[in-house]
């Protein structure tokens, strides 16, 4: 067995990483196509206040974050109705409120808790056994939920008005979807870090959009890119003692740049063969 897999914390980190490598792109593809990219940032700011509340109350930060982010997700949906013409305003309002609460709560924690840094930037050593069970359990629920409403989410992302007319229950699916986003952010924060979760939702999708030739292919490639980023990121961060979140996201950026380079080379080759 390679050295990296001999430690229980690394085994937990890799299992959690693989689940997150499925969750983030599956949620991310619909976030990107529905032009809701900011929602990931907004809910992760709220997640921070959930973490600090957990630390302050000496309860599980994961459970507190879950409560905070689901409440915020429902708040965004509610506010969106009040600002129909300015949908992004609802997301910004919740982001501001989440950050304000987090800052006040952090000021109440007299000394900056080392654990807080782990949540902010990602730390592979902090996935506790009980955290792993929550990540596995809820992760499987979110992944299967997405597969079960995949076709409805596809139609809504492409043409919400037509989907509504065709009889798809838009409102119910929208609420369910934002709850899934909130759960994904909560589950991913240990590995990727609150500040970088939305990057892992968006970057693999951005790469696959450049080369995918159908919706199915874009989904498949997004998962592949996310898995490479997460697993390689965890391994690299272990050997070089780096923050796992930053390493994972940096690998996603490298993949994106490689995709651009691959496309440019292919274009040049095509032009060359044309001449």
């Amino acid at each position, binding site marked *: 067995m390679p050295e990296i897999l001999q430690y229980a914390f690394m085994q937990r980190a890799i299992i959690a990483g693989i689940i997150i490598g499925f969750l983030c792109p599956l949620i991310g593809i619909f976030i990107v*196509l529905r032009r809701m990219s900011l929602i990931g940032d907004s809910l992760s700011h709220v997640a921070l206040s959930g973490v600090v509340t957990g630390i302050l109350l000496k309860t599980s930060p994961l459970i507190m974050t879950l409560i905070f982010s689901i409440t915020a997700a429902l708040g965004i949906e509610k506010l969106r109705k009040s600002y129909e013409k300015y949908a992004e305003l609802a997301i910004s309002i919740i982001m501001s409120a989440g950050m304000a609460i987090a800052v006040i709560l952090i000021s109440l924690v007299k000394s900056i808790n080392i654990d807080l840094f782990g949540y902010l930037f990602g730390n592979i050593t902090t996935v506790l056994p009980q955290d792993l069970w929550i990540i596995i359990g809820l992760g499987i629920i979110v992944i299967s939920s997405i597969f*079960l*409403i995949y*076709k*409805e989410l*596809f*139609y809504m*992302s*492409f*043409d919400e*008005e*037509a*989907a509504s*007319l*065709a*009889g*798809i*229950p838009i409102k119910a699916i929208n609420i369910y979807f934002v709850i899934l986003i909130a759960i994904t952010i909560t589950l991913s924060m240990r590995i990727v870090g609150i500040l970088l979760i939305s990057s892992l939702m968006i970057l693999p999708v951005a790469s696959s*959009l450049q080369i*995918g*030739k*159908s*919706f*199915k*292919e*874009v989904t498949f490639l997004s998962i592949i890119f996310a898995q490479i980023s997460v697993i390689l990121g965890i391994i690299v961060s272990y050997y070089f003692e780096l923050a796992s979140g930053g390493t994972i996201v940096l690998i996603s950026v490298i993949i994106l740049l490689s995709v651009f380079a691959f496309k440019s080379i292919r274009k040049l080759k095509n032009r060359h063969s044309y001449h």
Partner: protein
Amino acid sequence: MNKILEVNNLTFAYDKNLILDNISFEINEGDFAGIVGPNGSGKSTLIKLILGLLKPVKGTIKLLGKDINSFNEWSKIGYISQKAASFNTSFPATVEETIAANLYPQIGLFKRIKKEDMKKVHDVLKVVGMEDYSKQLIGNLSGGQQQKVFIARTLVSSPKIMFLDEPTVGIDNKSQENFYELIYKLNTSMNISIVMISHDIGVMTEKANKVLCMGNKKLIMHTNPSNTKITEILSEIYGDKMHLLLHHH
């Protein structure tokens, strides 16, 4: 003849601004109805009311014999909006993925698409003459081809009536001709009732058996109107200086 759509004493206002005042008309099975009228006369609003996207102040709407408030057979109603042509062209969907989407409500939540559903998709692609494009990304097609795909998307759920809101905006003349021929074919050979908003008066006089003229918050329906009659009506609603130039599609 079966009544597909019945609109009775319909009134609609945006806040206090009255848009439609007590209008009534009927569309029967196999009708090809054209809606004409100047911009702002409430043509799109009327279609949105019929589709339940807006709520009327007063009046009733019946689709396939059922009141709009309890109507649930939306798969039998097709709609192509002005927006259909202005969708996100970089969306990574193939032609067949786009069309299959309209079958999803019938397939139901939590169920996967089957082989016979994909056969329906390929059948409607043949009807609109786009069978060779099934694996292409929708964004890579021309405006005219995209509009045909949207027609196919509507057709796949076997509609009884199709509403089209200025469907040829932004499409070149040649593609417009093909498009109108296709709509006429659906009307005559598949017996799908058509309700189409268009500023193309030539198509209205040539293809439509009913012309719904809108203006001054009112609607007047004319059955099988002659060209002279149409000219008179349009002069009334668009203004005296209007002359009708007919061209054949």
